[in-house]
């Protein structure tokens, strides 16, 4: 009997639905943006998960930052406890593994420790990854991950520029994610592909804005998106105005239009926002999934976006930025 959804996740989805209810709504964000100062912001957040325990910390800014950190890390550990599918868990946690690997490689370049840059552990503890990279202690690492990591290391040691570190590891991460979700539900494949596409479209516009040579973009592109390298290669030659037509039949048309705006305005804020909205719209669809892992991943995305936006409002309030400017950064369809 082939049925969409995975009955193992009835409990998890129950938890997530209650958690989703606690996500801040668009109206709530509109009110937060109008807060008079940081104290006022904290007061407006007092009946949300971010306000819990805030009375113990007397400094309002620190209280909010602690709340953000707690909720963000909490969402990761919630995912970790609710997700029983090893493949999906690994796929989602590669992001933290590869981020920590970036940190390890950069620590080697910077010749110092970069504690604040670390994410919580993904599939492997930070120290295991560090031992693998620095002392070739590969024993605790799965064979396929070990091989990929070895080839990354060789590539980075050839050319240890920070940019190369990020780029190599990003590419490897997406390749690993793709191979993991190859046999999974279409949702996961679409999810990985859309992340690749968004990264590539961002890279395209950012390279073009910075007037980089085409080879630079080609090296940055991540294989495996819906649009392949030759598409971007051709698009690179086209005048910028003709680009939306090229993306006509993809879901990225709006993102591309905002990318073009960057050239007129000299600001990528609207592109960043459009990309965020695209991502949120993709994950919003999992609200209809009654049983499955999808809502877990989407919740992670929503929560991360929410903490980012709250941090942005906090910084805005600390620097007395007017609410209208702040609103420009807040995507629609939050919460």
């Amino acid at each position: 009997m082939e049925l969409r959804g995975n009955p193992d996740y009835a409990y998890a989805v129950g938890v997530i639905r209650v958690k989703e209810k606690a996500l801040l709504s668009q109206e709530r964000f509109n009110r937060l943006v109008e807060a008079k100062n940081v104290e006022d912001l904290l007061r407006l957040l007092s009946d949300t998960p971010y306000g819990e325990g805030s009375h113990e910390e007397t400094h309002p800014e620190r209280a909010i930052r602690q709340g953000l950190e707690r909720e963000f890390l909490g969402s990761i550990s919630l995912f970790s406890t609710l997700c029983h599918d090893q493949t999906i868990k690994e796929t989602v946690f590669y992001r933290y593994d590869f981020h920590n690997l970036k940190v390890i490689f950069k620590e080697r370049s910077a010749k110092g420790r970069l504690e604040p840059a670390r994410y919580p552990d993904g599939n492997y503890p930070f120290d295991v990854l560090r031992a693998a990279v620095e002392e070739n202690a590969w024993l605790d690492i799965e064979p396929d991950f070990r091989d990929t990591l070895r080839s990354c290391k060789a590539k980075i040691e050839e050319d240890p520029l920070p940019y190369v570190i990020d780029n190599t590891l990003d590419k490897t991460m997406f390749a690993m994610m793709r191979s993991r979700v190859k046999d999974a539900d279409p949702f996961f494949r679409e999810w990985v592909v859309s992340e690749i596409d968004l990264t590539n479209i961002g890279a395209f516009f950012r390279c073009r804005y910075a007037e980089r040579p085409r080879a630079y973009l080609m090296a940055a592109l991540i294989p495996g998106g819906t649009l392949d390298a030759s598409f971007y290669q051709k698009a690179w030659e086209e005048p910028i105005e003709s680009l939306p037509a090229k993306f006509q039949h993809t879901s990225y048309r709006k993102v591309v239009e905002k990318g073009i705006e960057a050239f007129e305005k000299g600001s990528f804020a609207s592109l960043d926002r459009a990309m965020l909205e695209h991502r949120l719209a993709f994950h919003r669809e999992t609200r209809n999934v009654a049983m499955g892992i999808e809502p877990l991943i989407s919740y992670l995305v929503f929560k991360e976006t929410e903490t980012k936006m709250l941090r942005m409002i906090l910084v805005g309030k600390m620097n007395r930025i007017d609410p209208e400017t702040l609103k420009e950064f807040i995507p629609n369809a939050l919460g």
Partner: protein
Amino acid sequence: MDFLGSFSYAVPLAGAALAVFLAGFGSSIGVGLAGQAAGGVLSEDPDKFGALLILVALPGTQGIYGFLGGFLVINKLGLLGGHPAHLTMLQAWQVFFAALPVGFAGWISGIHQGKVCAAGVAMTAKRPETMMKGVIYGAMVETYAILGLLATILLLNGIKLS
């Protein structure tokens, strides 16, 4: 009782067992699903217990229908009153098939009702006022379990035992 007679009893009893077993099987999966979903919700929001109770209990009815179906078969055979009816082989099979609708309808509808109710639980978690809508959708699945039970009752009534 001759050998044939005792064998002919085995057939309707197997039908009764199937009715109870299949419907109970479906129900337990269904209640299990809805119960898990409710457990997830309650772990975060314990106040919802009352609202979720109906949704969790709803897939449980199939098991009751199955039990009822089984009981009616046994009653029909006169095993309860101590005066067992005399059965021909044909009648034995008639009773057997009469018992099946409630079993199968209960089995399949129980599982699906469990899913619908789990979805209803998730919906209620977000918006408590929609609880009744979830119950109504669940009840639509219930219809087919009831129809199954009804078919079993009508079929049993249609069989004349001496």
